[in-house]
């Protein structure tokens, strides 16, 4: 249990640092902002209590907000994402049940499952985040385009990071 706690705390800090100092400085073509930090919420163990999920997402979003100077935006998006997580898990449940000790990653759950799981949640997160940021409907389609592009890049980074860490474990 302690090991699990430590692992997740470490993941929290590393993702926040990567997000603030690396990804926030990158603006690909003005359209794409990858938000890799959501990986933390994706990788929380299945048996995490639902209330803890929300609190952790809140803390994560708030940390990112403080450093990006965008008070509340990431918090709102992260909390929504954490709220949606149990529903998404139920929706895409496969025959392999979410047992204790099984981790929500490519290694344990397989690529197709992880792809739809991460893809859905990242899209939900980015959807709220980008619309809060823009806060108007006149640019609805441009914003939607940005959401799709950024979601794809974030998803790619998330999957890439999965493979990076798989190699270390083996």
């Amino acid at each position, binding site marked *: 249990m302690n090991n699990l706690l430590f692992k997740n705390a470490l993941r929290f800090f590393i993702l926040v640092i990567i997000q603030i*100092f690396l990804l926030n400085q990158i603006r690909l073509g003005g359209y794409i902002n990858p938000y890799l930090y959501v990986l933390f919420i994706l990788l929380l163990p299945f048996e995490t209590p*639902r*209330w803890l999920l*929300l*609190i952790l*997402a*809140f803390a994560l*979003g708030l940390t990112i*907000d*403080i*450093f990006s100077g*965008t*008070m*509340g*935006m990431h*918090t*709102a998006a992260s*909390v*929504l994402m*954490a*709220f949606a997580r*149990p529903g998404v898990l139920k929706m895409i449940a496969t025959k392999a049940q979410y047992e204790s000790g099984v981790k929500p990653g490519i290694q344990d759950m397989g690529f197709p499952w992880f792809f739809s799981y991460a893809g859905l949640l990242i899209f939900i997160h980015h959807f709220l985040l980008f619309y*809060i940021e823009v806060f108007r409907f006149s640019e609805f389609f441009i914003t939607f385009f940005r959401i799709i592009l950024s979601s794809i890049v974030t998803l790619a980074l998330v999957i890439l990071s999965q493979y990076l860490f798989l190699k270390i474990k083996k």
Partner: protein
Amino acid sequence: MRYLFAFLWKHNFFFLFLLLEVIAFLLIANDNYYQSSSILNSTNRFTGSIYTASNNISGYFHLRKVNKKLAEENARLHSLSLNAFLKTDTNNFFVKDTFYRQRYEYISAKVISNSTSKRNNYIMLNKGRNFNIEKDMAVISAGGVVGIVKEVSQNFCSVMSVLHKKTKISAKIKKNNQLGTIVWNGQNATIGSLTEIPTHVRLAKGDTVITSGYSLLFPEGVMIGTIKNFYVAKGDNFYTVDVKFSTDFNAIGYVEVVKNLMREEQQQLEDKSIDKKDE
């Protein structure tokens, strides 16, 4: 009441979600108000220190630009190099290996603090005794004269800017070699005064003013500025000349400290001749 709590407890996940989202949206709404800055300020101080640390690292990524700037300054210095050398007696050229002997040494330094708004302004540089910088060395930049080194510590030196009550720099007008002194009257950081130019000299607006090289500090021919305006005050035998500084004192980044390698020799000679005269 009990049923309400039971209801809340049953759906705790949803209500917690609602509560956190409300907090998040309050934060978004509040961010627009100046009043909330009191909370933000403390966090900004914290994030500020972290960003400073990160800037120290990311500064390395700007090295290319800084390098380019330094290279440009270097090129400028090379083009001036004749001024940096003293021509030795050409009749005795076989005595020396070269015609020229180095007289001035340039040490580049970075400005780490600067002011222009006070009556007496000082500039701090990031080099000191560790780079052989001594008191009373001249400081110039790509734009022109900057000041004179006043205090030296191990790693830093404090430069008395041209924008200082006590700074006096021997200057001359480039086209006719008329000698004067540059002082600053404390009003405008872009304008200095050239004094001691007698009224018989013909001046024109836009004339270039350079260092005379007669002082032991500055090499000859360093740009000071251009004449902006001149007039003769009533009852005065000298012009009052406003000189627009070529150096933008508000935007000095890199400077060069000039070391006069023959200063001691010159100084001794000067002292000796003064002593002789007195006897």
